[in-house]
Every structure is written in structure tokens, then in C-alpha cells.
């Protein structure tokens, strides 16, 4: 019988969806997923922002046209900016936590002799506290950013 080579070489349940699906796992894996998604949003925003700024070089008429196009989006422009602000806040704050972990070894705990029930020190209470503090700060600043943007629209 001829073997279907592609099917045989397929890795079971791998790919982008598997990578971003944190269900059943630890809190850190949820932060990982959010970090990736916010990173993609920021990259897309940066590309769009460079494209927007590029119109400055085309003269005042082109710039006015771009501004008019963005202004015509109305509340959706503000919602977009709010999502970008939230992404930047989370990505920055969580990025700082990761730099502390990776470059300085902070919040990881020291190597220990494994003892049942094998609670990993790198995912210990300190790590969780750092995550919850980040989430609280980001939430507070994000709400403030939302109020600020809506105020700019004259809604508040």
C-alpha cells in the first residue's frame, strides 16, 4: 500500500493555533499568547504609521487627504487607537518582566532539589504576583486611555 508521505510526516496538533491556545495550561502561557497577539498588533500599527507619515513627503495636499480619510473613520479610529494603546501598555509591561527573567534571572527562584508535588519555582508566587501587578497597572492605564480618547471625541 502506498504511504501518504505528507500525512505521515505531519506533526500531530502543531501550528499557530496550537501555539496560541493556552487552555488548560498555566497563567504564564496566557501571558505568552497575549504578548504575541499584542506584538502583531503593534507591528501592523507601525507599518500603517510609516505609511501614514510617508504622505507627509508627498506634500500638504496628500497629507490633508490622509488626515481626512482617518477623520472619516470617526469612532473606529479612536477604538483602533485604544486597542493600540492597550497593546503597547501590555507588551511593554510584560516585556519588562521578561527582561527581568531572562537577562537578570529575577523572579525565577534558585535551583532546588525537586520534591513532590514538584512545584516549579520559575512559575512560583513571585512570578504570579508580578503578572497580576502588570495586569492591574495595564488595566488602570488602559481604562484611563479609553476615557481620554472618548473625552477627545466629546462623548464624556
Amino acid at each position, binding site marked *: *500500500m502506498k*504511504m*501518504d*508521505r505528507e*500525512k*505521515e*510526516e*505531519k*506533526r*500531530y*496538533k*502543531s*501550528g*499557530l493555533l*496550537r*501555539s*496560541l491556545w*493556552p*487552555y*488548560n*495550561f*498555566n497563567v*504564564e*502561557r496566557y*501571558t*505568552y*499568547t497575549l*504578548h*504575541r497577539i499584542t506584538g502583531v498588533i503593534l507591528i501592523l500599527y507601525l507599518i500603517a504609521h510609516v505609511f501614514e507619515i510617508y504622505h507627509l513627503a508627498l506634500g500638504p495636499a496628500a497629507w490633508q487627504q490622509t488626515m481626512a480619510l482617518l477623520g472619516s473613520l470617526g469612532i473606529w479610529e479612536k477604538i483602533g487607537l485604544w486597542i493600540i494603546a492597550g497593546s503597547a501598555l501590555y507588551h511593554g509591561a510584560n516585556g519588562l518582566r*521578561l527582561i527581568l*527573567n*531572562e*537577562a*537578570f*534571572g529575577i523572579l*525565577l*527562584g*534558585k*535551583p*532546588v*532539589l*525537586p*520534591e*513532590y508535588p*514538584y*512545584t*516549579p*519555582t*520559575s*512559575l512560583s508566587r513571585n*512570578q504570579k504576583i508580578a503578572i497580576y501587578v502588570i495586569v492591574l497597572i495595564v488595566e488602570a492605564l488602559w481604562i484611563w486611555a479609553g476615557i481620554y480618547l472618548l473625552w477627545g471625541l466629546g462623548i464624556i
Partner: protein
Amino acid sequence: MKVRIRRFDGQKEWWQDYEIDAKPSDTVLDILNRIREKHDHTLAFRQSCQMGSCGSCGMVINGLPALACQTRIGELKTESIRLEPLYNYKVIKDLVVDLTDFVNKHRSVKPWMIRKNPEELEEASMEFQVTPDQNLTFVQFDYCIMCGVCLAACPTVAIDPLFLGPQALGQAYRYIADPRDEGFEERIEVLDDSHGVWRCHFAGACSYVCPKGVDPAKAIQYLKKEILKYRLLHKKKASVKPAELVQKAPPANAPKPPPFDFKIEGGE
């Protein structure tokens, strides 16, 4: 109790349900053995020690990678069990996965003691000693049983098959942290790469599922710290890519090696 198993026969995949009598004290491996003995002898799975030492029975139990011999039915607290082969591996049959890439990745980080003068190991005049405090800096990572569960949980392995993975990187740190080892410069070419330590973004899932408490995520973060320190002091760049060092599994249509000749010289 209903047991749902992901089956694969080399051609097609399907879910198969079994109805089994089970006690809360039974392990998932007990259930699998019961299915194979009484219900379906075609079911394939790996097992050996049945006590969490060999690492053969890694599989995904209710969506979480774990050892079947260490998971009791009572702990699961569910009416039914869903069993799948480990994620991110090629499946050979049913719950048996191909560990070739996994072992090659492990080998690529040179998981053995390296001395600058190899003769020291061949003709050692005295024992290489470590103090209990020094031992504590790496012994945690020495508990790895190579079950492969961490790679099934790792979200980065899911999108980058060339990523060395938590097991290999954890073992690299085990030897690098060992004061008797002098192989850091030999290993750094493989580790300091886009498919090496820097591909890890610390999701911590490997440490969360590790059945022996090895905490590979911690080892990888410490490894990053060591590599950063080394690069800042030495300013050397990596020249070899791990993709070149990791041997790939032979393709499915590759000619098979000749069968081993069991004849003994002088015998019949």
C-alpha cells in the same frame, strides 16, 4: 467510565471510544493495559517501568501532556478521559510518537561532560569533586527522564520544528552549570541562535507539565543570562546554525537498513 482515544494506523486518524470499569486509584496506564487485554489488542502505546522513571508513557491526557503511569483517574475529576499522542511530534501509531528529532536535538547540545583536556577523563588521577552547594546549582536539571512531555506543551515547538526545545536546552544548562564541565564555548554555537535559547519566550508550559519537577523554563532563562554575559565579555558571534547540527529523521520512502544478522560465528 468512557475513554476516548485518538487512533492512527499509518493511514487514517479517528477517535475510538471504550467503556471501562475504573477505580479512582487506577492510573491511566492501568486503564490502557485493561483496554489492550480485554477490549482491543490493536491499541498501541509505550510503557516500561510503570513508576515514572523511564518516561515512556508520555501522552496528552484531557488536553494536558503528562505521564500515563503517574496520572490517577481520581485526580482528573472528569466523567470521561480523552487520550491523544503527544502534540508537536510525528505519530507512528495510536499513542506512539516518533522521538527521533527529540533525541537528535538532545544530542546536538552535547549532553556530556566536556573537559578542555580530554585525557583528564580517560586517565583521571583523582575524582572530580563538587561540593553539596555546587551540586544544588544543577542537580534539579539532572532529574530529566527524557519523556518528551515538555516539547508537547511548548508553544514555540508548535510553530518552529527546528527549535531545540526545553529538554535539550535544560540539559545544556545542566552541564554548563556543572563546575566540572568546560564545554560552554563548544555548546554556545548551537545555543546562541534564533532556533536556540532566543526562540524561547518563557511561556513556562514545559515546567508546568514536567512530571519530575525539572523546571526547564528556569534553566533556559539562566542559560540566556549566561550567554548574554559571555557575549558582552567576549563579543563573539555564532557561526554554526543548529539546523545544520540537528540530524533529520530519514524520509518515509528512504531505503531501510538491512536487518540485523543474529548469526553467531561458529554457531549453526
